């Protein structure tokens, strides 16, 4: 298919340009001395002015801290519940209510966030009426809401990992005398750990990044970072947000590149060892 390679290269070029030009423009302009995107202030740029502004903004910093805490708790909760759900759907035979569970775990993947947000807020209001908890909205309600929608992603990741998992390994462990709980913790879990880890990261990112649902279920005094950012950017371009974006892109970029390198190294080592084993008798 050599003749088509120009087309493929063009597609990739256009596509990646489309994906990255906005990000790069944000990064570049975070160093622009001028407030305006239109003008590149050549005299005083590049500057770290906006980074200083960012780090002295109490509102943003405390919102960021709240978001980190929410995301960490959410990710952990989502991973526990999501792994259980994934395990149940992948390993357990039919049971009453299985279709409902399956539906409830995949629906959040595509459900518009305004609907989930609205419904959760209503639930919290009712619960408050009914049993007095939760009292007002805040950290807990945000965490509950985030866990609920992000566990769907963890479930999908774990479920598909388990689907390609060799279940003769689990059978062998049972056959050797291990009880099912032991089989899970000593055999299944270690082997699906990478999937669980990526599920954690996924849930963390989703929670960290969530705006719509947070807006519905947050309360006074619990403002997350996306909420602060949103209220700022509604009014227009704000260079300290550019600085924030640059920082985030850098962190994520480093993380992705490092993990890619690490995985490549693992794969290479594995392949080498397998080859060496084949050469022997």
């Amino acid at each position: 298919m050599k003749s088509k390679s120009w087309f493929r290269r063009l597609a990739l070029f256009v596509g990646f340009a489309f994906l990255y030009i906005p990000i790069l423009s944000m990064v570049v302009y975070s160093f622009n001395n001028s407030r305006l995107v239109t003008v590149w202030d050549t005299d005083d740029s590049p500057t770290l002015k906006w980074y200083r502004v960012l780090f002295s903004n109490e509102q943003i910093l405390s919102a960021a801290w709240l978001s980190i805490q929410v995301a960490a708790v959410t990710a952990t909760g989502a991973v526990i519940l999501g792994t259980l759900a994934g395990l149940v759907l992948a390993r357990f035979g039919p049971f009453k209510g299985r279709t409902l569970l399956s539906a409830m775990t995949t629906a959040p993947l595509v459900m518009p966030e305004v609907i989930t947000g609205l419904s959760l807020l209503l639930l919290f209001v009712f619960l408050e009426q009914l049993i007095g908890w939760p009292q007002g909205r805040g950290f807990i309600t945000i965490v509950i809401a985030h866990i609920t929608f992000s566990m769907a992603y963890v479930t999908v990741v774990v479920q598909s990992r388990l689907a390609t998992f060799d279940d003769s390994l689990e059978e062998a462990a049972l056959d050797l005398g291990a009880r099912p709980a032991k089989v899970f913790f000593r055999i299944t879990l270690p082997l699906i750990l990478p999937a669980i880890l990526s599920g954690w990261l996924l849930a963390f990112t989703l929670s960290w990044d969530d705006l719509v649902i947070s807006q519905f279920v947050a309360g006074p005094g619990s403002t997350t970072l996306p909420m602060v950012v949103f209220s700022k950017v509604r009014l227009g371009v704000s260079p300290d947000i550019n600085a924030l974006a640059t920082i985030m892109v850098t962190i994520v970029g480093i993380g992705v590149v490092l993990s890619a390198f690490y995985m490549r190294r693992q794969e290479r080592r594995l392949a080498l060892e397998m080859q060496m084993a084949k050469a022997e008798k």
Partner: protein
Amino acid sequence: MTEKHTEGGHPRPVDKTNEYVRIESVTKRFGDFVAVDNVSLSVFKGEIFCLLGGSGCGKTTLLRMLAGFEAPTSGRIFIDGQDMADTLPYERPVNMMFQSYALFPHMSVEKNVAFGLEQEKLSRKEIDQRVAEMLDTVKLGELARRKPHQLSGGQRQRVALARALVKRPKLLLLDEPLGALDKKLREATQFELINLQEKLGVTFIVVTHDQEEAMTLASRIGVMDRGEIVQVGTPTEIYEYPSSKFVADFIGSVNMFEGRLIEDEPNFVRIQSPELNSTIYVDHGISAPPGAAVWAAVRPEKIEIAREEPDSQENRARGVVRDIAYMGDMSIYLVKIDSGKMVRVTLPNSVRQLSQRISWEETVWLSWDASSPVVLPQ
């Protein structure tokens, strides 16, 4: 195929007084599909019993029921006198060697082998000792710290074996144990397996689709077809005295002549076949009514092929050699006899001179001894 069976089958005679496994009228249904159909079987202590059959015949399902991974729809399984009805896999005195070996990829060879012992609450010292012993027995001592992906196929197989045997089970189930190995390795491993089994005195139940494997390993073979046990016997019995056309066809190759009983006496029978110009004379009696439709099965190695006409007027056919497959140690001749049927004859290449050997398009006479045909009902 060169036959390696010894007279009487496996060297060690089977102790039929010591029944270890009893399968009683076991049926397994998956929805409408009957995987195992009313199977009853006894396996004796210390023997190597092979379940032999093609894919889908139910042998693996039966094995899994013995291991505890499936429950029979009806019927009972007794191991060492105990009904296994509510016993889960981790409670059974049985261990299994999986077809894919199922080695735990994140554990070293040592840890894999130790896993089963760790479930038994033994002291660390004893576990380490038994693991080291077992690894020595299977000659993997130096590879103890390696992980499965660092091992070759043959080495992995030995780890799987060690892992199952280190628990000193009374019964070991093996699912296609030699399937993943190449031919040379397979032969060597076959004999190693037999030696190991003799040494440890464990009862083996092996599932395989490879008849060579079954013939070499087994003290007794159970041939399965579509969920049913079709015949149980020693390798010799199965090969020389198949009880049905299916078994005769399944093991080795065979020439089947369709015919009718024309004479039925206590110590001989005569069969008339439209596929043969002569009659078939068999020197033992069978229990079938005269005039019954039968198959006469004659194995290729039992047929003599010669340029000269044989003396006897029966048990013979004339034909033309249509094809020869040269296997080195022997040759397979495909002879088209007068009736048009293709008969398969194998002959060891005992004569070195090519010019003396029978060649293509030669007219030849086929003949066989009266003891050779096996009469099977239609």
